[in-house]
């Protein structure tokens, strides 16, 4: 392990984090609020640390797979440690672990909160909290690469470690150019959401907050009732569709720009994503409509929002779906687990993995019936190589194993099963709210410190898709040879 290369990447990331904190500081200054000092101290500390670390001279060939993965995992951890300082130093969140939980929840676009009353938090901090969603959604290293393509000799590993999905690809040959295109698409879509929200009657500042949460599929809000506070069908629909679109693989938007429509509709992952989202909405509508005396459009509005918010792992709420019948909750829980597309800002197992796993299952049955048959699993008409298939299966196993382990740890707090289980799913899939105590109107404040640390770990593991984090904490790779 070349520690210097890892630290250099970390330095560059921290330096940019400091820069990205400046808008929040400006808002605090405009409001002349008490957290100005906390921001100034944090920005100074982050920038200085980042600057010193980024001074390391490295040989570009030193950036191999393990360095890349470790650098990404370490960057996310340290970035959250620094990002939590404004909450802690200003006193808005008195416990440092709570502040760290909130920040990790922000960067990983989870949206789980330990803040009991979000409406007393000053605007500067609220802005920073939601802005972490926007940064974390597409990834900090992808952002740095868009600006500094020469971050190391082999930035491809940084991108792989940070981008969700089994085999993240580039849009164009140059990685810096790819990152730039992704961020431009991301930024333009975010601006469109902001404009639409303002047009629908949301105050400007709030529009930013909700647009960041929608774009990053995060879910931090600034109202105790989340999006439900506005009770405006326009806003509901803008955010519903917005979340759905941010859950689509961004490669498809690039194809859209290049006018290759045929390829978009042929994309099997996208089709599966549309299918289970649509099916989920239909099932919930049928289940919910008679019980709550909604008319059809009301039922559609609430179910579409809830399905979209959970399948894209955002975690906003317009209504307390915790009160819905068990069948609807089970459908929602399944969708939480699936998640949206790879290469989007969403979390979860990802549609493409579910697709491959189902296909593998189907082929296995076929193979048992025709033992001599030779076949490969195909996605979008291309055979999947064994390595990718293996990595998907191992990913799935590890995901389930981590969930089981986390549930056991969290159950020490002795909450009911649905709370403990959904809390773990909500954090590892980067959703935010679960059911029971951690439902859309509840929060994570009542858990013990041990559980909170478990959730923090789950959120980062879920966002970086397991491997980078495990690599960072494997003692073997830190040895000199």
């Amino acid at each position, binding site marked *: 392990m070349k520690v210097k290369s890892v630290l250099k990447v970390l330095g560059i990331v921290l330096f940019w984090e400091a820069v990205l904190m400046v808008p929040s500081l400006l808002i605090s200054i405009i409001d002349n609020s008490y957290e100005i000092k906390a921001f100034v101290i944090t920005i100074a500390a982050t920038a200085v640390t980042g600057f010193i670390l980024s001074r390391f001279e490295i040989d570009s060939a030193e950036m191999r*797979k393990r360095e890349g993965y470790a650098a990404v995992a370490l960057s996310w951890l340290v970035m959250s440690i620094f990002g939590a300082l404004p909450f802690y130093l200003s006193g808005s969140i008195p416990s440092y672990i709570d502040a760290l939980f909130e920040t990790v929840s922000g960067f990983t676009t989870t949206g789980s909160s330990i803040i009991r009353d979000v409406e007393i938090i000053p605007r500067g901090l609220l802005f920073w909290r939601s802005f972490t969603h926007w940064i974390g959604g597409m990834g900090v290293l992808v952002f740095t690469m868009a600006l500094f393509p020469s971050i190391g000799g082999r930035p*491809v590993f940084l991108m792989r470690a940070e981008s969700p999905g089994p085999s993240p690809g580039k849009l164009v040959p140059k*990685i810096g150019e790819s990152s730039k295109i992704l961020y431009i698409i991301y930024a333009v879509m975010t601006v469109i959401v902001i404009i639409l929200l303002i047009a629908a009657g949301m105050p400007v500042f709030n529009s930013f907050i909700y647009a960041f949460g929608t774009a990053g599929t995060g879910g931090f809000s600034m109202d105790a009732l989340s999006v439900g506070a506005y009770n405006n069908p326009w806003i509901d629909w803008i955010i519903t569709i917005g979340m759905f679109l941010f859950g689509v693989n961004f490669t498809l938007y690039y194809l859209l720009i290049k006018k290759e429509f045929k390829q978009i509709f042929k994309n099997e992952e996208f089709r599966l994503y549309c299918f289970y989202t649509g099916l989920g909405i239909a099932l919930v509508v049928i289940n919910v409509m008679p019980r709550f005396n909604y008319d059809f459009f009301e039922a559609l509005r609430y179910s579409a929002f809830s399905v979209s918010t959970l399948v894209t792992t955002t975690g906003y709420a317009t209504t307390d779906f915790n009160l819905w019948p068990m069948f609807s909750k089970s459908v929602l829980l399944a969708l939480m687990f699936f998640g949206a597309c790879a290469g989007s800002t969403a979390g979860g197992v990802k549609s493409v993995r579910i697709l491959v796993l189902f296909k593998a299952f189907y082929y296995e049955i076929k193979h048992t019936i025709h033992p001599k048959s030779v076949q490969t699993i195909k996605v979008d008409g291309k055979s999947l190589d064994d390595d990718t298939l293996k990595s998907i299966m191992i990913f799935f196993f590890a995901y389930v194993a981590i969930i089981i382990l986390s549930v056991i740890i969290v159950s020490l707090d002795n909450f009911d099963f649905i709370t403990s289980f959904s809390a773990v799913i909500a954090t590892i899939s980067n959703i935010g709210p679960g059911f029971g105590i951690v439902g859309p109107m509840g929060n994570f404040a009542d858990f013990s410190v041990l559980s909170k640390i478990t959730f923090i770990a789950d959120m980062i593991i879920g966002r970086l898709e397991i491997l980078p984090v495990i690599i960072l904490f494997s003692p073997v790779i830190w040895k000199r040879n």
Partner: protein
Amino acid sequence: MKIIIVGGGKVGYTLAQQLSTEDHDITLVDNDANVLTHADETLDIMCIKGNGASAEILRSAGVGETDIILAVTDSDELNMICCVIGKKLGAKHTVARVRNTDYSDEFKMLREELELDMVINPEMEAAAEIAQMVQFPSAADVETFANNQIELVEFRVLGTDPIINQKLMDLNRHLPSRVLFCTVMRDEEVFIPNGSFSFLPNDIIQVIGERISISRFFKYLGRSSHKAKNVTIIGGSRTAIYLTWILEEMGLNVKIIELNKDRCLVLNDILTDALIIHGDGTDQEVLDNENIEAADVIVALTDRDEENLISSLYAHQCGVPKVILKINRQNYFPIVKKLGLDSIISPKFITATNILRYIRALNNTKGTAVEKLYRVLDNKAEVAEFTVKNSSDLTDVKLQDLNLKNDVLIAAILRNKKIIIPNGNDVIKEHDKVIVVTKTGFIADLKEILA
């Protein structure tokens, strides 16, 4: 530029590596997933798995907007088909590697009928390069610039040379002709010498000048400038065949030592004038029998680097004035040079270099872009040729007044077919060709030499 490279072997990889650092968009197509994984992990390029001659694969590589397709797979026919299809699908230029001797007389027809813009034959290029070395026995390597009027010659300083142990500014007064010392490599380190520099034995020097000045300079050094007459080639490879053709045309006697009996018969069929010896070129008995000391040049061209090295070392020991050897693995270069063997040939490297040269010339559409570029002294220095297309800060200013970067040297200026080896009072004018030596890394534009 957008470039598609088909075939990720040594040549393809070298090209991808070099071109991606020169800011081109590279897409590499290969059938072998392992090759692609390696390329994807080490280079900033796009990789596509598949058959490069298939229209679908070429389309997914964006062939419609591609400037150049470089087909460098192992198969000549695949390379040709790939270029033909690529051109039909909209690629602007196509380059194919074609190495089979059967096609070697048909390059012109291939270029015309298949609309290939460049057909490159690694073995033939290597043979041409070797022939140039044979012509200039006292130099390790020769590169030419400005339509062969200017020569850049690399040689190793010997203890008996009159140029050692005196400062360069004094030395320049004694020289019989105007030549310029461009770069010096001493113990793996490269210098651009200034007036107070003095040479030591075993330095590897590059000197530039007009052809006639260079040969006068070598006469002054007391190096034998007499023409080589007898050439012995060890290993009857394809390169050996091409080389024999060229050398025989120049009127030299060629002897080929080849281990494989059948191959000997084939060689005998193709090369009627050359003497074909059936024997092991690494066996000293065989070499002594063939009176190796009497040869003017030994060229080791077997397929195995190690065998070439052994034969060459023995020949070097026997006092053969010029030993040239083929080495495929580039990481052997420094080791081989340390053993005193300076004339190394690598067909794949030459192929890559020649293709790069072609691409740079294509890229040269505006301003003062680089026209020819050579990496010298283990890639530690570069010699580049530029044409000054329009006037700028650089032109009509005395060189001594130009604020040049460190480690940049203006080595020669060509104006109206006249060669100027410049001193501080010369100026660069519009339409000049300028040859620049740097050790700062790739310069894409002449303006980049200014500090």
